[in-house]
Each structure stands twice: as C-alpha cells, then as structure tokens.
C-alpha cells in the first residue's frame, strides 16, 4: 500500500499525541524524584488528560459529520471517536485524582504509576480511532499491558500481585485468541483494513474462515469485557487491584474494549450478511449477552464484599453492552449512539462508586464488606447520598443516567428487524429489577444499621472532587438527557 504522509493528519490525532507525550514526560519526571512522595506528579497527569479531553472537544466541534481517514487508513477520525476519546481522557483524569490519597494511605507510592496510566490511556484513544486490524491489536495491547502493570504496582500486597497475575494470564490468553481470529479474518479478506474488509468478506472464497475468525473474536472480546463464561478473572482482579486501578479497569478499559468491538463487529463484520443466520457472529453473542446479564446479577446477589459485588455488577453491565453490540450488528441504526451513551453513564457511575469505596477505607482496613458500611449514612451523609445516587444509576432507576442508558440500548435492540431481540430485552429488564435488590442491600446497610466502629475515611481533595462530580454528572444525564443524546449522535 502506498500513501504519502500528510502532516495534517497528525492534527486529527492531537488528543492521542497529548496523552502519549504527557505520559512520556511523566515517566521522565519520575527519574528525577527523590523520597517517597509522588503526589505532585498528579498535577501533570490531570493537566495532560484534561488537555486531551479539551482537544477532543475542539476537534469534535470542527469535524462535523465527516469521517476522515488518517495515515493510510490505519485510523479514522469521526465524531464518535472524539466523544470516546474525551470520555477516556476524563476517566483517566478522575482515576488520577483518586490515586494519591489511596497511595499514601495504603503505602504503595510508585511514581511510574501515572506515566503508565497515561500511556495506557493513549492506547484507548488509539482504539477509539482504529480502522485497521493492526491498530485494534496494538491499541488493545498498549492499554492492557499498561493496566497489568498498574494492577501489580501495589507490590507489597500479595493480593495485588495475585490479582495482577490472574489478570495478566487471562488477558494474554485472550490476546492469543484475538490474534488468531484476526489472522483468519485477514486470510478470508486479504486486507487488514476494516473498511475494505466488509466488502471483501462478503465475496470471499472461504466463508468458513470468516465464521471461525468471528467466533474466535467473540471469545477474545468476551474475555476482554469479562462476559460470562469468560468472566472468572474479573472479580478476583477487581478485588485484588488497588481501588483506583479497579475503577480505571472497570470504567475505562471496559469502555475501550467495547469501542474496539463497535469498530470490529459494527464495521468490519457488519453489513447485511455476516451477523445473520445460525452461523453469523450475532448468534453466539446474543446467547453470551443473555447469560452474562443473568449470571452476573445472580452472582452479585451472593456477594458480601462490595468490590466483588461491583465486579459482578460490571459483568452484568457488560452483558447489556453486548446487547447493544448485537443490535448494532443486526442493523439497528441507533445502536451506536446508544452504546456510547451507555458507556458515558456507566463509566461515570463506576468511577464515582469506586471513589467512595476508596474514601471509606483507611490505613490497614479497607472496609470492603457490606457490614463494614453500616451506619455510613449517619456519620458521612454526603458520601452515603452520593453512593445511593450511583447505585440507583447502576440499577437503572429513572432520574439517573443509568436509566436512560439502559432505555436507549434496549430501545435500539427493539428496532432490530422482526423483533428478534425482544426476548433479550425482556431478560435485561427482569435482571435490572433483580439487580436493584442487591444495590439496595448496600443502601439499607448505610442508612438503617448502626455503625459497629467509627469511620476514619481517607480524606483528600481529589477524592472528594470525584465523589462530588460523578453523581452530579449521572443525575444531569438522567434529568436532561437531550444534550447527551445529541452529543452521541442519537
């Protein structure tokens, strides 16, 4: 393939470049630090991510409805990719704000953390723009390797190491499936560009390769977004990782994996042929989505550990996102916007919830059990109120962003021709009702039970800011969804 390098293309990649350069500067700055305290690196981290977010907003406004191929169609710039890259940048900034207090309180101050976080986020932004198998693979790997490292950074905790090991081994296994599936698709299409692939796959000589490749990709992405039956790593990894990293994993990594799925399944494997029929990729995905929503919820009901409960709840949310991806593949026009709206609402809710988990814990005592949260409402009403709002959003109760997110995804699933996904929507709605039960368990513990021990929360400005801003955004998305719907192009 021949192309002439056009420096103007780099202009469209400014968010990515800002993120990468800020990450490199942070890695460099770390080399000049003495002593233990690293909290001053947070400033540069937050500044870098916010600059990337602002650049995304500016480019979003400039680009209009155009889709601009960049650098030999390795990447594509479009409105959706800028919405997603702004989302990833904001989530990164929030995760960075949560970190210094948690690091100090639980004694794992490592300066490389912030650099690795931004470089990992640059991989996510690459995924938001990806238009080629190579860039999808590279984006997923840049993101994942960064997160494996962040997970292992609480080096003196055996639980942290164990979580990193499990996450790494499963992630690497999934990478093997991803790569083999991509190789088979490349063989069927003869090109690695996602745009050309859709046309090439429709007329391929080897339809068997397409089926095998698509199924392998379903498995690989199932691992990456923690869909049942590929979810067993998620509760362990989420519980063992330091809480800010858990938040980053649950919000940003999952959102980026879904962004890659939008590209992969919506663009390359979309169209009128490939998703349909009993051998189309939508048929296993529909089953996986239904099982994921159900098993995720049922397992969450049994959990006493809040981090594990949120992990299972995030598994069931991944199921809802897969419903959206199925609808996208089966030709629902509004699915793309619905998924992006869901990602925004879900990420903000997750960041806030884990921030409160980090806030409640204190040195030597993480207070992860539901019983440990008894009486929070009386002693720290602000945190308890914020948590209540976020849990209602997780459960999909009306005045919150979570409700509209689920509503839009299910609505797009209803649009599918012939009502093929109606049963899936029913499964989703029933499960939302079940999920409210275990979310309310935390709420009742917070408000209606006596504290057995006084709280000694981790106080820090950054953490409190995250706790304050996330419920506000979630409520705003619920009360005035119009702005956000227009933003995601619904």
């Amino acid at each position: 393939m021949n192309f002439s390098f056009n420096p103007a293309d780099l202009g469209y990649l400014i968010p990515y470049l800002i993120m990468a350069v800020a990450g490199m500067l942070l890695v460099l700055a770390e080399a000049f630090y003495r002593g233990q305290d690293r909290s001053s690196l947070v400033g540069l981290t937050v500044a870098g991510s916010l600059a990337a977010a602002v650049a995304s907003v500016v480019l979003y406004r400039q680009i209009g409805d155009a889709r601009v191929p960049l650098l030999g169609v390795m990447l594509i710039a479009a409105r959706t990719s800028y919405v997603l890259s702004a989302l990833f940048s904001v989530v990164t900034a929030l995760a960075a704000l949560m970190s210094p207090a948690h690091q100090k309180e639980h004694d794992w101050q490592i300066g490389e953390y912030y650099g690795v976080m931004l470089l990992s986020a640059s991989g996510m932004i690459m995924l938001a723009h990806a238009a080629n198998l190579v860039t999808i693979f590279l984006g997923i790997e840049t993101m994942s390797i960064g997160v494996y490292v962040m997970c292992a950074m609480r080096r003196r905790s055996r639980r942290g190491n164990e979580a990193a090991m499990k996450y790494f081994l499963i992630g690497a296994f999934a990478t093997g499936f991803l790569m083999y599936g991509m190789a088979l698709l490349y063989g069927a299409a003869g090109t690695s560009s996602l745009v050309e692939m859709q046309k090439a796959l429709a007329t391929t000589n080897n339809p068997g390769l397409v089926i095998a490749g698509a199924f392998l990709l379903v498995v690989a992405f199932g691992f990456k977004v923690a869909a049942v039956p590929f979810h067993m790593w998620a509760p362990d990894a989420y519980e063992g990782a330091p809480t800010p990293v858990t938040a980053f994993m649950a919000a940003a990594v999952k959102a980026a994996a879904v962004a890659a799925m939008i590209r992969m399944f919506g663009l390359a494997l979309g169209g009128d042929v490939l998703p349909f029929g009993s051998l189309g990729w939508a048929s296993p995905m529909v089953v996986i989505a239904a099982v994921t929503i159900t098993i995720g919820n049922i397992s969450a009901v049994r959990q006493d550990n809040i981090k594990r409960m949120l992990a299972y709840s995030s598994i069931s949310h991944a199921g809802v996102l897969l419903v959206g991806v199925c609808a996208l593949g089966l030709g629902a026009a509004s699915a793309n916007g619905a998924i992006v709206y869901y990602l925004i609402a879900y990420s903000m809710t997750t960041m806030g919830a884990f921030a409160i988990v980090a806030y409640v814990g204190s040195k030597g005592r993480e207070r992860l059990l539901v019983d440990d949260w008894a009486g929070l409402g009386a002693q720290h009403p602000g945190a308890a109120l914020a948590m209540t709002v976020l849990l209602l959003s997780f459960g999909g109760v009306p005045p919150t962003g979570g409700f509209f997110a689920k509503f839009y995804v299910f609505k797009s699933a209803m649009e599918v021709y012939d009502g093929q996904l109606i049963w899936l929507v029913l499964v989703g709605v029933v499960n939302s009702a079940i999920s409210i039960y275990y979310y309310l368990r935390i709420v009742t513990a917070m408000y209606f039970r006596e504290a057995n021990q006084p709280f000694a929360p981790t106080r820090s400005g950054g953490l409190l800011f995250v706790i304050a801003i996330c419920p506000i955004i979630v409520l705003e998305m619920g009360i005035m969804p119009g702005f956000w719907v227009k933003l995601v192009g619904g």
Partner: protein
Amino acid sequence: MMRLLILITSAFLAWGAVDAMAPQAAYADPIPAQQGGNPRARVNIVKKSPHLDRVESRDKGMALLFWLFAAMTVGGALFVVTRRNLIAAVMGMVGSFLGISAIYMMLYAHFLSVVQMLVYAGAIMVLFVFVVMILNRPEDEPVAPSGRAGQVIGGLAILYLVGRLVMLLWKVQPPDPIKALAAPVATPEGHEWGTVKAVGTDLFNGGLFPFEAISILLLVAVVGAIAIARPLHAGQDNEGDIPEGEGH
C-alpha cells in the same frame, strides 16, 4: 524412545538429502498451486526463473524439509506441554521457534524468519531462562489431576473443534491461484518479496503509524517491568500487607 526418534529423524533427513541431490526435471515452488492451479503457468514461471533466493528446492526435497521442520515445531511445542522440568520446556520452546523460523523461510518471509530467530529464540527465551534461574526451582509440580469427567468432555469438545478447524483450513481456496502463485516468483525482482527491503518499504508506507506507535507499547513494558520487578527496599518485606482474611 529418544534413540528411535533420532534414528527416524536422521533417516528422514538422509532421504531428503539424497532426494534433493538427485537430478530432477522440474523445479518446484515450496507452495505450488495446490488446488485449481494452472499447471502450465507454473511450469512456465519455473522455467523462466530458477529460484535466486536460496530456498532453492526440488519437489520431494522441499516437502521433506517441510515435514522435518513441522515435526521440529510440533515436537518442541509438545515438549513444552509435557516436560515437568522448566529448563527442558524452555529448550523445547527454542527448538520449536527454530522450526517456525525455518517454516517462515519457506513462506518467503525471510526478514520475519530472521527476526523470529533473533527476537524469540535469541532474546525472549533467554529472558525465560533468566527467570527460571531466578526462581531457582527447575522442577515443576506434576500436572494437577482436576475433574476426570470434565477433562474427557472438554477434550472431546476440543478435538471436535480441532477437526472442524483443520478441515476448514485444509480446504482454503487461494483468491486467484495463478495470480497468487505468480506474484512472488515471476521475475527476479519478485524475489524481493519478503526481504528486508520489501518489508521495510511496506513498514514505512502503510505500516508507518503502527510502527511508530509500538514504541509507546515498548516504553510501557520497559517502565512497567522495572517498576514491578525491582527489589523492595529493606525492611519493607510484606509488612504493609493487608492481613489475610480481611475483606472476605
């Protein structure tokens, strides 16, 4: 058992060598048109330009070499799965990688073949050996017996899928047999295909962005590996750990 294997292998090799040296009329491409290829087109191409790129071969000799390297690859990989000694497993892996790199040569991926040898067999496996030595526990625990019934069902399911996959891959149809065959070998210039020059040109054309972006990935890996694996400061050994059992 080992001796028998060596004996068979050397007999195989000898057969290949004799066969390769025997004068034969037709030169063969390592990948001739398998199905539906136009035999006449192939002969014409071959007569016009004998191989200039040192993977010169004749019919049976090349096939035997393929089987030899395939056996080496699969045997090395099986070694990894079956050996309980970590060093033996690593050595099996090295053998497997060398076989793979020879297979790449047959696929006209000369540059990739060399990279495979340098990066995998040369660098990654040395890293593995280092870690095995750091762990200082070359004897692995035996394979854990876990759930007989589950193993049988899982094994059968996997075998079924393997069968389907193999049938599928065996019947792969080239897009356009004549064109695909002609592309790499038609002219002396065609032999540039897969060399450093050709791959490098492609790398700095279409592959420019990933080639640059991969440096970020490598930076993450280097910084991360150092941050995780460097020794803890004295007096910090697992003291700040959360007590086991809390959080359950």
